[in-house]
């Protein structure tokens, strides 16, 4: 009797161990039954080209001395020191699209010895310059911003004394550069004039009164691709 007991114990132990191993095998097989991982060999790629915008400002700036109020008709005829030419150029090396831009003016501080004129006292006038195809080297001017008081451009709500120039109806097409070809460069040339409005009362101005008005031009652009 005493010799039989260890055999019974061994049988029980082997049975339990066998069941345990079987269980582990079944569970193990179940967990690893099927897995699959796929990773692409080739990448999808999207790239953009370079886009640039330039503002070219003439070295010949407006420098009018001894300015007095003048009519719009006369102001529009100002020449030489009464004009300031600049050009906006855009270039897109990538997919053709439209580059839209705005032109704005920013009031600048007067020189130390001068007092800044009131915005209502100064008018600006903008034309676009095109080369006359019928006459070599002849430049044609087309009005794009009618004579406008600076106070109507830089208003009380304007930030940083900067206001956007509102182009005349029918002239806003100049503010869009249609890039139809890759790498195309497009330039639009402008001429700015400014004068003292003829409704300004200059009767109190004298030798000791020194008024001045200064402004700068800005261009800002954004992209609108061709659909």
């Amino acid at each position, binding site marked *: 009797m005493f010799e039989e007991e260890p055999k019974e114990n061994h049988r029980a132990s082997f049975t339990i161990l066998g069941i345990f191993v079987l269980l582990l095998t079944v569970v193990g097989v179940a967990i690893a039954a099927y897995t699959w991982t796929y990773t692409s060999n080739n990448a999808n790629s*999207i790239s953009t080209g370079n886009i640039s*915008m330039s503002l070219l*400002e003439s070295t010949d700036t407006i420098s009018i001395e001894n300015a007095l109020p003048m009519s719009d008709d006369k102001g529009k005829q100002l020449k030489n020191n009464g004009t300031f030419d600049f050009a906006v150029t855009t270039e897109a090396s990538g997919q053709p699209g439209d580059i839209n831009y705005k032109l704005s003016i920013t009031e600048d501080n007067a020189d130390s010895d001068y007092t800044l004129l009131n915005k209502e006292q100064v008018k600006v006038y903008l034309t676009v310059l095109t080369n006359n195809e019928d006459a070599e080297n002849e430049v044609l001017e087309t009005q794009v911003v009618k004579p406008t008081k600076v106070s109507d451009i830089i208003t009380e709500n304007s930030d940083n004394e900067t206001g956007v120039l509102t182009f005349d109806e029918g002239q806003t097409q100049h503010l869009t550069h249609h890039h139809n070809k890759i790498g195309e460069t497009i330039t639009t040339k402008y001429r700015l004039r400014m004068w003292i409005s003829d409704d300004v009362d200059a009767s109190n101005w004298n030798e000791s009164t020194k008024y001045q008005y200064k402004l700068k031009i800005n261009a800002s652009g954004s992209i609108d691709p061709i659909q």
Partner: protein
Amino acid sequence: MDNKKVLTISIVAVVVLVIAIISTSYATFSAQISGEKENKLTTGYVTLKCDEEVFTLNDTSPMTDEEGIALESNEAVCTLSSEMKGEMTVGYDIALDDVDAETPDDDLTENDVKVQIYKITNEQDPAQTKYLQGTSENTGTYIANLKEKSGTYDTESVENYLIDSDKITGTTQVIYKVKAWVSNNKNGVENIQTNSVTNSDDGVCSNSEYNTQAECESAGEVWGNSQKSTQTGGTFSFKLKIGATQILEDE
């Protein structure tokens, strides 16, 4: 009484003898019968594959969702096919992989690129097209929005940029499509003002054919100083990845 006892003992003895004989008879009987029916186990199989179409879109420009979705040649496709002999349910996660891995330091990032993601389970029935990860028929989502989305079934392989998690059984096909474009929020040209100018040149003509001020101005061009703002191009890339595993019935 003695006869009865003798009789009783005799009957008992006979019964015991009969039992003994029967027992002995059974003990000596043995038989072997082989069955004719075969029990067998043959294995089935499960095959998953992704037939891919990749795209390369160069020199593109920022655009709206509507324009990006309408664009052609900007669509990554994975036709996920399963073939099963036997019954199994497989759970899978499909995700973007190697996102911007090729040019991580340039100007085009996952914050600039949008995608529209959808899957087609029945090409004959457009109503079964399902748009994924917040995209719709008309809108996309920035790839950056997928970054924190991890897989459901294969969390080790698919830790982020999840496109979809689903189950697949039997022999079937699901088509995944990812359209990508550069968002128009990435406008290229900012204000040409002192604080945003990236390049400045003195003595420049508005027409590059002319190199001197005299030539330039006599041709009716503008001569002066140029300030230039440039947005350099960039490249963004991604791959597709799938992790799949069997789903046990008790899960």
